[in-house]
């Protein structure tokens, strides 16, 4: 087990390096000159060149990447071309908002999606099953930015129940909860629908297996069969899916933050792209992707704990 985790950690480091190279290279070859952007629109040619030298942009590509990687390992993602603040600081202010949103959405998706998927499997081919399956298909087909806007239209503009946007407190506080309901629903819908579909099909597989037949023939109550015997194995595919889903949530959060005016990493990234603030784009893309890689690693390890049958090779 320890060997497996070490191996996964090594792979994670390689992935982060590969990903950071891709991010660095793609923005290195981007249109527009970072030195010009940093120097401002009224700068003279000499000032732009001085800025280029100051930012180290006159050095060869691999030297620049090497420096970037070295600084990254020390927790330094460079300074924003526009505000001249360290990007790490600017991101640190916003990370809690994004994680707050993503975790709230994930919890909601688990609470709603998993039980509904299980129920659909237990009532296979009933009207309820068909209704739930149709809803889940619709759920994965609705764009989250539109769904979010519809929620605002209904619950804020018409019914005045929830605030239209902003998310400044954690979702487990009373104020934060009120703020989190709509964004988390908008963001969590697709994941909940995904969990429902996977939960239903994995539960159906498990319910047909031999050991469930044995449990039933022993005369166990149906509830015991389902809760004690089937659930644990039925959940395994969902756990595998959780890593990818959390990534989807981080990606989706970029969009949801725009809908609900939440000051998270997504909003920072979109602004940075619009302002051609390349160092900020680099930093935020790198941060989101690294978070995704780490979450996947955690899920992989969890997966081994839940399912001891998995081999570590």
């Amino acid at each position, binding site marked *: 087990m320890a060997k497996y985790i070490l191996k996964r950690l090594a792979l994670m480091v390689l*992935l*982060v390096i*590969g*990903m950071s190279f*891709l*991010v660095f290279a*793609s*923005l290195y*070859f*981007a*249109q*527009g000159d970072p030195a010009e952007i940093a120097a401002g629109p009224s700068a003279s040619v000499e000032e732009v060149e001085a800025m280029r030298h100051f930012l180290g942009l006159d050095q060869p590509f691999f030297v620049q990447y090497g420096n970037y990687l070295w600084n990254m390992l020390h927790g330094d993602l460079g300074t924003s071309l526009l505000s001249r603040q360290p990007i790490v600081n600017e991101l640190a202010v916003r990370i809690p908002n994004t994680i707050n949103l993503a975790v709230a959405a994930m919890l909601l998706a688990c609470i709603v999606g998993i039980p509904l998927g299980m129920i659909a499997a237990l009532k296979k081919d009933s009207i309820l099953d068909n209704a739930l399956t149709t809803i889940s*298909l*619709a759920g*994965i*087909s*609705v*764009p989250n*930015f*539109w769904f979010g*806007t*519809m929620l*605002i*239209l209904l619950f804020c*503009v018409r019914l005045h129940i929830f605030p239209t946007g902003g998310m400044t407190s954690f979702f487990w506080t009373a104020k934060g909860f009120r703020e989190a309901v709509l964004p988390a629903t908008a963001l969590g819908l697709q994941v909940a629908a995904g969990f429902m579909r*996977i939960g239903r*099909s994995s539960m159906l597989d498990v319910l047909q297996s031999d050991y469930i037949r044995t449990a039933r023939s022993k005369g166990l109550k149906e509830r015991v069969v389902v809760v004690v015997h089937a659930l644990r194995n039925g959940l395994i*595919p969902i756990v595998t899916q959780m890593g990818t889903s*959390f*990534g*989807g*949530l*981080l*990606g*989706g959060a*970029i*969009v949801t933050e*725009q809908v609900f005016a939440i000051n998270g990493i997504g909003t920072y*990234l*979109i602004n*940075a*792209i*619009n302002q051609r603030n*390349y160092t900020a*784009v680099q930093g935020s*893309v790198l941060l*989101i*992707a690294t978070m*995704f*890689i780490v979450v996947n690693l955690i899920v992989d390890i969890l997966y081994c704990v839940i399912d001891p049958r998995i081999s570590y090779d």
Partner: protein
Amino acid sequence: MKRENQIAVAFRKLLKNKLATFCFILLILELILVIGAPLFTKFDPLAQDIIHHSAPGFWAKSSPKYMEGHWLGTDELGRDVWARLLYGGRVSLSVGFISTFFGIIIGTFFGVLAGFYKKLDMLISRFMDILFTFPGVLLALLIVAMLGVDTKNAAIAISIWSIPSFARMIRGRVLQIKEEEYIMAIRSIGAKDKTIILKHVLINALPTIIVIATMRIASSIMSIATLSYLGLGVPTPTPEWGSMISTGKQMIFDAPWLIIIPGIAVCITVICFNILGDKLRDILDPSLKD
């Protein structure tokens, strides 16, 4: 010859399913409307008429702002919503189709190479792993940041975004096909790799490709709408469903239909492609279910 029949059989089976047939007809109708847009509206989607802005449509005929002829109303600049919906559909659907097409070509190319040649597999699969570290729209955003905001660049971004998932699924399918006895038989009579790949592996992977492509069109249409909503896809004033929702959001209090109508268009299109994909998968390649 036999393979053509298999696809035709699958199509006939598909049309036996009522829901799938309904979606298929709906999509055909939508395509006719969108391609023949000038036949179905007399308005120019860009023509502004500020005096008659945000007029409601058929649902509020008694309203003093209602304008005869604009059956879906007008937007914040007095442009006809129905015309923008039709012309906007051209952009959304063509970006969806084109980016899926290029995604398939490139993804299949790498998927087949990785599945067929063990030596290349390591290289290609690790590269795809790196592309997979960008969750959701992030990869597309990075590419748009690199290339600049433009419809063409958004299409490129969405194509590249769909490459890794195509490549991975096709690779999996090719690995299965490669192990089958008839491939070994063909190889033993001295067939070249090129022949085996083009004539046998690719053709056998075709059902899988069709299924993934159908579903991918759905997500590509959603992606272009998302990018445009973020202001990083189709530039204004070109109509596109996502950017219509984005500009409509400013009018959420006075003219909510500006958000509702284009959103319904996206949803219907995406749901139909997803349902078709689901049914096609059940018929052509049930192994893709998870």
